[in-house]
């Protein structure tokens, strides 16, 4: 592959990743139980909203100050799907 082809490939790959991120974000927003989320204590509510926007479970756990496996259970209760 020439340098230009490599650059094109990388550009295409990054665009694909960006489109996937947007698609996954929309799915998380759509399925989320917003009533459940709004009733949570501030840290948990913020962490759930952060997760919906980013899909980043580790940073969300830090916000919530709970472990990853407990946060995963919370995502199920809030009906927020994991999509990877």
């Amino acid at each position, binding site marked *: 592959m020439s340098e230009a082809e490599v650059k094109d490939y*990388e550009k295409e790959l990054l665009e694909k*990743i960006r489109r996937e991120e947007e698609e*996954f974000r929309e799915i998380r927003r759509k399925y989320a139980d917003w009533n459940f989320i709004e009733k949570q204590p501030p840290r948990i509510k913020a962490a759930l909203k952060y997760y919906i926007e980013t899909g980043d479970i580790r940073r969300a756990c830090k916000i919530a100050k709970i472990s990853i*496996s407990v946060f*995963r259970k919370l995502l199920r209760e809030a009906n927020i799907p*994991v999509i*990877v």
Partner: protein
Amino acid sequence: MSLKLAISDTCFIIDWAYYRRRSILTEIFKTILVPEQVLAEIEDEKSISWVSAQLAKGNMLLFTPSPLDLRKAEELVLKISSKPFLRKVDLPEAICLVVGQRLNAIVLTENRGALLATRTLNELKNVVVWRALEVLTEAIIRKTIKVKKREDVERVFREYENDTKHIFPRSDLKYAIDKVIKCLKLK
């Protein structure tokens, strides 16, 4: 014959443990390595009781990364964090990627950061990463999960989604279903 070796990160285990057919994982892989750093993160009862049972049976193996693995994993965390287009990874996922590469083990993950790193970083291009989607695909093709027709295949993936509240990306799911249909010559 089962595949030889896999190494699992936390995100994979804490989803897979909720799946009704979770036992198939140990039929597909002879040994599943669980790094100490991953085990330390598993706290919910369903996941930890399943993992503990598998450790007791010898299907899973508690793995202590070497100092060199840890150093390489730390370097990988820093490298990925320096790339703004990549999702960050933390030490447990990075350990899985580094050890998976060193031992030629399939890395089981549902961590998007780890997945994107193997797609975009040249030094990780030879690391094989499987999500539950790929594990289920393999299980059906190997006939560990029996199917007779397309609807059965679709049901297998749907059951996983229902049990775990995990959604497979639709395009990846379609690719997986088509692959199974073609391999097994189903209608």
